[in-house]
């Protein structure tokens, strides 16, 4: 982060290589649209570049800091979209992206994954974000709490509810 603060673009590229894929995955599943998710993630790294000098390693890990920006921008984007839909500038339908089959699809049937995607999309916003940060970004409870500015207890509660709902919504055993 110190290198980024000094204006080393290569350091930013290295950081992006590490984080952009899981961040796009989290944002896509949260927003329901990959094009918007990619824009959000681009903005996250632009913010990181602009504010690298403000980063304080005593207050949060780099991962937590970056994901906090990601969470905030995702929430902002969702609010903007809701406002645009409210005033009629955007249609209510959300494009749920159907990812190109990857290695994981070989193990789970495509239909099963679509079912899980639909179930994730039905979760309340906070439950969905907590679940994605835990499962996809692989953040610990403390880091999720820090990124979402909620207590650890709240994170654990949201995770339990999210998993329970997901299990109830998907037909097969997990």
């Amino acid at each position, binding site marked *: 982060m110190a290198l980024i603060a000094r204006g080393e673009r290569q350091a930013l590229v290295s950081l992006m290589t590490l984080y952009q894929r899981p961040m796009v995955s989290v944002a896509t*599943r949260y927003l329901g649209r990959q094009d918007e998710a*990619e824009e959000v993630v681009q903005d996250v790294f632009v913010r990181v570049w602009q504010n690298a000098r403000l980063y304080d390693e005593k207050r949060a890990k780099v991962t937590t800091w970056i994901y906090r920006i990601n969470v905030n921008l995702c929430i902002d984007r969702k609010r903007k979209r809701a406002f645009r839909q409210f005033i009629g500038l955007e249609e209510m339908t959300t494009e749920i992206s159907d990812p190109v089959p990857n290695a994981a699809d070989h193990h789970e049937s495509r239909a099963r994954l679509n079912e899980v*995607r639909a179930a*994730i999309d039905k979760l309340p916003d906070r439950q969905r974000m907590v*679940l994605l940060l835990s*499962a996809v970004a692989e953040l610990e409870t403390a880091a999720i709490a820090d990124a979402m500015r909620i207590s650890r207890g709240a994170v654990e509660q949201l995770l339990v509810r999210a*998993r329970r709902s997901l299990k109830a919504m998907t037909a097969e055993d997990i």
Partner: protein
Amino acid sequence: MTNNKPDGTEQDEINALVRAASGVDVDEAKLTRNVLTKIAVETNGKSSAFYGGFRSYSPAAACAGFAMLMLGAGFFGYVLGDIMGFAGDDQFLLLALSDPHGLNDPFLDPVFERVE
């Protein structure tokens, strides 16, 4: 639904399923290129101090600019009216109410007639 699995195993399985369901095909090179372009634009934009500072806040800046313009125009009109002595002349009020003849209009509603 089975509840006979240990919590840890079940959590791991749910996490793995969520991870698999959330997989997306990302063009990382394109994403990186876009970010670097945005940063370059941002860096160049800051070289013009005034525009660069306001660029990120364009809607707020536009509203603030419009409000300042209106305030300026109002103040200018007030000062000009005071200097030229027509600040209390209601001819202008009538003119503003789309009556080109002002108080000299013979068909003027008596309500608007000047009381001398």
